């Protein structure tokens, strides 16, 4: 049987049988988690012999963040409680390198993935989640929303006669088993023109030294960088400046948007804060768990106090997220049922976010 495989790609390492048979990297352990990037990194590190929990990955990768950004296509606000390039930051803080590769050449993107799999490496890729039936089934988000920043790890493949009959096996954070998608579906999901956040066929090559930096050192580096990214972001709608904008502007949305668009924005905001891979509480709960684990490793009372602050922040974000959800169903309810009280909650969030950063600074000065 003729197999579909791009020219220049070898299948030799797999010693494929006469019939098509799936090959999944035997040493790759699929585990579920709270957030796509941090969970995938924890899995990939484990594959490379480095055992670090998802929460520690999130913190070492300086994952705490905030984005308040208006997109134009579709015209929705993009609100997210995490920072960017978590994968690259984790590797750097461990003494390794994550080399990102983006291309507009779909064949090259496919070949890059197969080459890494043939080398025996799982491949972390960016996808537009709305293309995969298993994602659409779980999250009713993708009618209006295209998000190209979802990360999955390709752990194996099964070559067939065409792109429609060749399959990848994906490790995705919220599913108990590996998911099977065709090469054709994967091509669409990786090359999708997903508005402001296209996946751009992104995939990573991970390179680690024989001995990585200590976990203690990596935690300190992650916290130090996170203070920087929150206070001095590369774009003024990120970090604390972005948070200030969000807290002072969300209540004005009702005056500036028509009802249908307003509901879409509110629903998307709720989903991004609470439902889709945030671990709940706009990533503050996962960050709190990072701080609790870090406080035990570093025997730091200050980090334990910071854990408590972020745990409470997680509760506050959850509260505002559910108010936003109510408003998405009926704009007279939720955050607008008592705007004064909502503003008080938003002010409290902003205050606690700033306090949390001060506590982290205090830890570094110990």
């Amino acid at each position: 049987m003729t197999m579909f495989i791009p020219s220049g790609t070898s299948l030799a390492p797999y010693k494929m049988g006469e019939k098509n048979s799936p090959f999944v990297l035997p040493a790759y352990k699929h585990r579920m988690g709270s957030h796509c990037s941090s969970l995938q990194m924890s899995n990939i590190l484990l594959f490379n012999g480095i055992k670090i929990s998802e929460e520690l990955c999130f913190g070492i990768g300086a994952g705490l963040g905030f984005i308040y950004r208006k997109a134009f296509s579709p015209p929705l606000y993009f609100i997210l409680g995490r920072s960017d390039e978590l994968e690259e930051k984790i590797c750097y803080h461990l003494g390794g390198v994550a080399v990102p590769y983006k291309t507009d050449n779909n064949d090259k993107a496919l070949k890059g993935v197969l080459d890494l799999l043939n080398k025996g490496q799982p491949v972390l890729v960016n996808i537009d989640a709305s293309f995969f039936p298993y994602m659409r089934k779980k999250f009713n988000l993708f009618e209006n929303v295209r998000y190209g920043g979802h990360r999955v790890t390709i752990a194996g493949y099964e070559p067939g006669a065409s792109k429609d009959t060749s399959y990848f096996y994906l490790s995705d954070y919220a599913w108990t088993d590996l998911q099977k998608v065709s090469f054709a579906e994967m091509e669409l999901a990786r090359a999708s023109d997903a508005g402001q956040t296209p996946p751009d066929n992104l995939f990573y090559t991970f390179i680690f030294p024989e001995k990585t930096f200590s976990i203690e050192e990596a935690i300190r580096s992650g916290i130090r960088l996170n203070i920087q990214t929150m206070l001095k972001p590369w774009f003024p709608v990120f970090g604390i400046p972005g948070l200030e904008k969000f807290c002072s502007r969300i209540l004005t949305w009702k005056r500036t948007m028509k009802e249908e668009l307003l509901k879409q924005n509110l629903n998307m905001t709720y989903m991004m804060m609470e439902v889709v891979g945030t671990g709940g509480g706009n990533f503050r709960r996962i960050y709190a768990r990072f701080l609790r684990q870090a406080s035990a490793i570093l025997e730091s009372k200050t980090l334990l106090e910071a854990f408590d602050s972020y745990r409470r922040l997680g509760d506050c974000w959850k509260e505002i997220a559910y108010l936003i959800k109510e408003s998405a169903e009926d704009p007279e309810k939720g955050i607008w049922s008592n705007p004064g009280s909502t503003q008080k909650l938003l002010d409290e969030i902003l205050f606690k976010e700033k306090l949390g950063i001060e506590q982290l600074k205090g830890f570094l000065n110990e």
Partner: protein
Amino acid sequence: MIRILEKFQALHLTSGPMNKVGLYRDILHYYGHDYSLPLVFGISGLLGFTFHSGKISAKEGNTDQPTDLFPDYHLPDGFVAGEYFLGLNNALRATNVWCQRGTKNNKHDFFELLKTYINEGRPVHIEVNRTRWIDKIGLKKYVRAEWALYLNWVHNTVSLANLESGDYHIICIGYNDENFTLSFLDYYSSDSLEIHIDDLFDCTDFDNICLAPANKWYVYYVPLELPDIRSTVSASLKFMANSMINPFKTGSMVETGLRGLDSFVATIHDLFTDREVADIPRITSQILINSYSQNSLYDFNRMLFSEFLEESSTILNEPELENIAYRYAELARDWDRLIRPLKLKAFNQKECLSEAEINQINTIKNKEHDYVYSLWDIISTI
């Protein structure tokens, strides 16, 4: 319409073969951060050692092993260099700069992309095939006579096709959409250079050469305030020393760090003692090509690293680093003393390696080991 980022052009400084480092220094300056060339080099984690031991593995029958660490890597057999070719990835992390990147495999789309970013006031970093670029842009007139001699040697001695290589970095600062030309800065020239999009594409559209440019482009988003320089410098020193002492797990015939250096020296030694004369010019050529043109100055970048150590000594208030800086300067001179005579011999197509030169390599190897461990001891206490 014609558009030029004049502010960028005004602050541009040449840096010769250190084009990647010079380019990133210009980017940081453009956004208000006055970092020196050695400081940018050091925090970018660019000092290292890479050896692609293709020949050794072939002897052992491991020719099926993959050689690419990541896409577009494609190192030839016997390739040796003073870095890892990880681009500016570490520089971005050290400076907390966000990078938008990609490839454009259609020249019209490429032109439109460059226009879009220039209109936003953002210069665009592009990788090119250095041999094609130097020919195309007529760059010979900007560089030393020695460079012209080198190019003649390349053309006359070694197959040009084997020498085509990427990892040459230029920056687009303007366009003219009436005649489809673009304005670039090259790190050998103070002047802005004009090139038609067709000619540019002839320099970028290579997938299969060493460190292939593959139409890659990068745009940088630099924060108003960079991370604390003390933390940045100490983290970079630690990264460099760790990568040398504990090599990268490459899963291929590419060896890095001190192990790569040891392997390289052993190869040279074997070649000499086995009298495999045919291989001597090949290895010598690789040393020359990489030490000359691949972002290096005969010395595998040890002198620039020495200057970084001097700055680090002041930044970290750590006098011991100055002593290490002195030793790396000595190491740079050692490499230079080894490579310069080789260059002259190669240019004249004479015998390439003498026994004295082989012994010199052993001495250098021992110093490399000693100095990086000394550096590790110092930074472990910071």
